[in-house]
C-alpha cells in the first residue's frame, strides 16, 4: 500500500530529525511541568497590616492572613504602595476599610475574601454575645433592659491603583501588549534572517568587505523601522480603541515596548542561526516564548519554588512586564522603572553582540 510507503518515509525522516523528536516528546512535558509548577504553587497567605482593629477581628483575620498590627495608617499605606504588603485594613467609627494595591487581581480577590470572612465571623460572634447578654439581662424577675443589636460592619474596598470597575482584561492588558509585541517581532525577524541564510544571500553578503557587526546592525535598524511602527500601532490600538486604562505616560510605555521589541528582534535573528528552516524557527516557540509567558507575571509566582523565581529573572519579558505594570497600572514614572529599562537595554546589547559572534560560524573575520 502506498500510504504505508509514505508513512514509513515520514517516520524515518522524523526519527532522524532529533530536534523535532525532542519537540514532540520533551517540550510538551517541560511546558506542562512549568505550567503545573506555576499554577500549583503553594497557597501563600496574603500579608495584611491591621490599623486600629478590634482584637477579636484581628484574631479572625489572622486565621487566613499574615497580620501585622500598626498604629499609623499613613505609614501602612506607604508600605502597601511599595508592595511590601498585600493590604491594609483600618477600623474607625464602626467602618472597616480594606486598602489594596489593585494591580494583581488574585491578591485583591484573596484579600477581599479573607476580610469578608473575618468580618462575618466577627459579626456573628458579636451578635451571639449580644443575644447572650439579652437573654441574661431578661432573666426571670429581672427588670427589662434595653439591648442594642450590633450593627453589621460595612466593608469598603479602596484601591491604590485601579478600581472595582477595572476588568480582568484591563489588568493583564499591559502584559498582553508586551507579549504580542515580543512574539510577533521574534518570529518575523527570525524567519526573515533565516531566509537570508537559506537562500545564500548571507554568504554573498559575507563575500563582500562588509563587517559582521554591520550586517547585524543593518538588519536591526532596517527591521527596527517596522518594529517601531508595529509597536506604536499595537499600543495605540489597545489604548485608544480598546480603552485599556493607561495611568502613566504613553511615551514611557512606548519606550518599554520598543526596548522589548528591540530585544525580541535581536533574539529572533540570533536564534535563527540555530535553525535550518522555518519549521525549526517555529519550534523555538515552546522553548523560548512559552516559559517567558508563564513566568512574566501573568501568574503569581509568590508561592512558586525559588528556582522558578530565579528563572523568571533571566527573561526579558519579566522586566518588560514589571515596567509596563508599573507605568500603565500604577502610574509610576521613569524613576521607578529605570532598572527594568536598563535590563532590557542590556538584553538588546547582549543579543546583538551574540548575533555578531554567531556570524563567525560563516566567516571568521
Amino acid at each position, binding site marked *: 500500500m502506498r500510504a504505508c510507503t509514505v508513512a514509513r518515509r515520514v517516520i524515518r525522516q522524523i526519527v532522524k530529525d532529533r530536534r523535532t523528536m525532542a519537540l514532540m516528546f520533551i517540550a510538551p512535558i517541560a511546558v506542562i511541568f512549568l505550567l503545573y509548577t506555576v499554577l500549583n504553587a503553594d497557597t501563600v497567605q496574603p500579608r495584611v497590616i491591621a490599623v486600629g482593629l478590634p482584637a477579636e477581628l484581628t484574631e479572625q483575620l489572622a486565621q487566613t492572613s499574615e497580620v501585622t498590627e500598626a498604629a499609623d495608617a499613613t505609614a501602612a499605606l506607604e508600605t502597601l504602595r511599595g508592595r511590601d504588603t498585600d493590604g491594609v485594613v483600618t477600623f474607625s467609627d464602626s467602618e472597616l476599610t480594606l486598602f489594596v494595591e489593585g494591580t494583581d487581581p488574585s491578591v485583591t480577590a484573596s484579600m477581599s475574601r479573607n476580610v469578608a470572612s473575618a468580618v462575618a465571623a466577627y459579626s456573628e460572634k458579636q451578635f451571639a454575645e449580644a443575644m447572650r447578654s439579652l437573654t441574661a439581662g431578661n432573666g426571670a424577675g429581672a427588670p427589662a433592659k434595653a439591648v442594642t443589636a450590633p450593627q453589621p460592619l460595612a466593608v469598603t474596598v479602596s484601591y491604590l491603583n485601579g478600581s472595582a470597575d477595572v476588568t480582568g482584561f484591563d489588568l493583564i492588558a499591559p502584559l498582553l501588549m508586551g507579549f504580542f509585541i515580543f512574539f510577533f517581532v521574534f518570529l518575523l525577524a527570525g524567519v526573515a534572517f533565516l531566509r537570508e541564510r537559506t*537562500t*545564500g*544571500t548571507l*554568504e*554573498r553578503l559575507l563575500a*563582500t*568587505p562588509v563587517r559582521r557587526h554591520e550586517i547585524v546592525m543593518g538588519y536591526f535598524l532596517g527591521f527596527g523601522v517596522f518594529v517601531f511602527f508595529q509597536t506604536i500601532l499595537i499600543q495605540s490600538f489597545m489604548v485608544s480603541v480598546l480603552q485599556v486604562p493607561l495611568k502613566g505616560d504613553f511615551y514611557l510605555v512606548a519606550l518599554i515596548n520598543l526596548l522589548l521589541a528591540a530585544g525580541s528582534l535581536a533574539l529572533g535573528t540570533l536564534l535563527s542561526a540555530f535553525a535550518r528552516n522555518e519549521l525549526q524557527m517555529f519550534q523555538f516557540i515552546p522553548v523560548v516564548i512559552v516559559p517567558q509567558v508563564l513566568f512574566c507575571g501573568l501568574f503569581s509566582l509568590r508561592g512558586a519554588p525559588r528556582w522558578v523565581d530565579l528563572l523568571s529573572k533571566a527573561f526579558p519579558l519579566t522586566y518588560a512586564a514589571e515596567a509596563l505594570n508599573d507605568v500603565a497600572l500604577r502610574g509610576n514614572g521613569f524613576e521607578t522603572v529605570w532598572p527594568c529599562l536598563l535590563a532590557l537595554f542590556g538584553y538588546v546589547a547582549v543579543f546583538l553582540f551574540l548575533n555578531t559572534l554567531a556570524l563567525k560560524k560563516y566567516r571568521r*573575520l
Partner: protein
Amino acid sequence: MAACDALEIRDLQVGYGKRIVLHQVNVTVPQGKIVGVLGPSGSGKTTLVRSVLGVIPIESGHISVFGKPVPSFSAMAEIGYMAQSDALYDDLTSTEHLLFFGRLQGLSAAEAKARAKELLAFVELDAHPGQPVRNFSGGMRRRLSLAIALIAHAPLLILDEPTVGIDPVLRRKFWDAFEALKTQGRTLLTTTHVMDEAARCDRLLMVRDGRIIADGTVSEMLTRTGADTLENAFLHFSAIKEKEMA
C-alpha cells in the same frame, strides 16, 4: 618586479566535521587568465571557492589574493563573486540589487548608479529595470548574478558554475563576456563540470574527491594523456590518482 599571482593557495585542507573535503590543495592563478576548476559534483569545487572567499573555516593552509591574506577585508575587496545558487532577493529589482552590492563593495551612490546602468546593458537586463527578481526567468537571474559579481570592477572574479541551468545561446554569450573581461585584464576562476566549457579556459584544474588530480592547459592535458577529449583526459587522470591512492 614580477606581478604577484591573482590567487595563491598553499596546502589547503578543509573538512566538514570528520570528513576531509579538500586535501592539501596547492594552486596558483596568474593574473589575466581564465582558470577553470573542472570536476564532478561533490568533488570539492564549491568548497574551494568558499575557502577563497573566506566564508568557511579552513583546517590548515594559506590563501592569498593579490598577495593579501584570506580572510581579510582587503582581499575581499579584490573579489567579485557569482554564487552557484542565484542568491538574490526576490522582492528587489535588478537595479536595486546592483546598487545594494555596489554600495557594500565601497562604491559611492553615484558610482553604483552609473555602474548599475552600464552592467544592466552589458547583461541585457536594461529592459527590465523595475521588475522584481521574482518574475525573472532562470537565465535572467544568472545574468543579474553575473552583473553583481562585476559591480565593483574587482580584478579577480570567482564564478561558481556560472552557466548551470542556462540555454546554449546564453552560455555562449557568457563565455564571450568572460573573454572580454580577460581582455580587460581581469582574472577569472570558474568552476564547471561541463567539458566543452572547460576547453575555453586558459588553464584547467581537474578536481576529484577533494584533490587536484591535474593542472595545466587543455592542450597539455590532452598531450600528456593522449586522450582525444577532456572527458577522457579526466578519466585518465582519475585512474592514475586511484592507483596512487590504492
